[in-house]
């Protein structure tokens, strides 16, 4: 094991310890987070969609389950679980699309278990979680028909996107849907910032579960990220100072 491997393993255990510790002490020290306007607006938009009998669409992006780009889609699945519960009172279940076959299967499993747990197993429809196209642009080309023909009024993008992110958000805007979107790719985030009405920047896409009330471990995750981030900032600043004053030390 190299020194870098050891550091990585220690950092991983630090993550794990902080997450479990934060979750265990959440009652004594409850987490408070800054309001994110996009998530506040999302909650209201979902309520409006349920009342109006319209559908919520969750797009899990074009990344593969087995690639490193799967993380924002997993965050999207956690959000989907909450959204499915919130829309279980509606007669129009949420619809989920993905650009990867395995991700579409996971979306169907999430919908099935969420509707089952909320006491509405009849709402589950196998065609509500679907593969739109196996390549990024074929996926995006399939989006307009979902958004316009299936009465979608909330269009949530949470997954990996390349340049197709701009079109994925734009089709939602053209369908006059509430568009909220976040991804892990920095360049695609810039596209979403320009196109989507409610962009999620940086790691905000991973915070959807915590802001939608998916459980204590989601809140503990955010607290852990903050603690590790502060630690990393201190280390970076120390490194900058040491490099700057290297000759004097």
């Amino acid at each position, binding site marked *: 094991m190299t020194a870098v*491997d*050891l550091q*990585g*393993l220690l950092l*991983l255990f630090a*993550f*794990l310890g902080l*997450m479990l510790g934060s979750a265990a002490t959440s009652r004594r020290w409850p987490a408070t987070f800054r309001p994110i306007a996009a998530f506040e607006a999302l909650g209201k938009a979902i309520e409006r969609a349920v009342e109006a009998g319209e559908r919520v669409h969750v797009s899990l992006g074009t990344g593969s*389950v*087995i690639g490193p780009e799967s*993380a*924002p889609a997993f*965050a999207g*699945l*956690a959000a989907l*679980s909450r959204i499915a519960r919130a829309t279980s009172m509606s007669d129009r279940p949420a619809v989920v699309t993905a650009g*990867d*076959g*395995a991700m*579409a*299967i996971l979306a169907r*499993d*999430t919908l099935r278990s969420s509707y089952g747990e909320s006491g509405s197993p009849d709402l589950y429809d*196998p*065609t509500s*979680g*679907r*593969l*739109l196209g*196996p*390549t990024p*642009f074929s996926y*995006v*080309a399939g989006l307009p*028909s979902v958004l316009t*023909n299936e009465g979608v009024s909330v269009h949530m993008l949470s997954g990996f996107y390349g*340049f*197709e992110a*701009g*079109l994925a958000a*734009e089709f939602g805007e053209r369908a006059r849907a509430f568009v909220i979107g976040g991804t*892990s790719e*920095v360049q695609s*985030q810039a596209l979403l910032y*320009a*196109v989507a*009405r409610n962009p999620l*920047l*940086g*790691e905000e896409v*991973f*915070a959807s*579960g915590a802001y939608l009330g*998916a459980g204590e*471990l*989601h809140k503990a*995750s955010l607290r852990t990220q903050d603690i*590790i*981030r502060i630690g*990393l900032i201190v280390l970076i600043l120390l490194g900058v100072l040491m490099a700057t004053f290297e000759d004097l030390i």
Partner: protein
Amino acid sequence: MRLFRVSSLWAAVAAAIGAFVLLGYFLDFEFIQNIRLLFMRWAALLAAAALLVGLANLVQVHWRKLSLTDEGWIYSAVLILALLATLILALLLGPDDEVALFIVENFQLPLEAGLMALLSVTLLVAGFRLAARRRDAFSVLFLATALLVLLGTGPVLGGAEGQVMRDLRAWIAQVWSAGGARGIALGVALGATTTGLRVLLGADRPYGS
């Protein structure tokens, strides 16, 4: 009670496999490495099989639209016909055959290139819309930066004569943009790590419960 046990079993299996694969990146023991490689191969095979399941699901969705003559059913008919024709040709002749390559080069690629071109127009419209819709300091900064980089990259001001614009573009791209991107990438890495750990701990169960 039975449901609880079954879901816990799946969570335990997923967590154990995930932990082995994760530890394989840090620990150089032969046993763990072999197990990691085996699981990775299984994952690749399952992902390939999942594509077939996804395609079957795609046909199911569009067949339903076609049989109910829902709005846009004609597009569903075209999609099913194109999918079946391409699939049969590729299965019979092989994916590297001239006919299969002809379809990719003359249908798939031009359509995707057309969508890429549509993206450039979309971004231009979105830029104007952003200026009208979100009038805050960040949006102004975003648009001004995009404009400066665009001018510094273009042939008129960013050409051989426009040294100042080129330097300005390089300064924005290499100092401010790269610094900001690294900060965002750091945040994304932290978020991705906690998301992965939640799946490993069984708190998030994308495989259903």
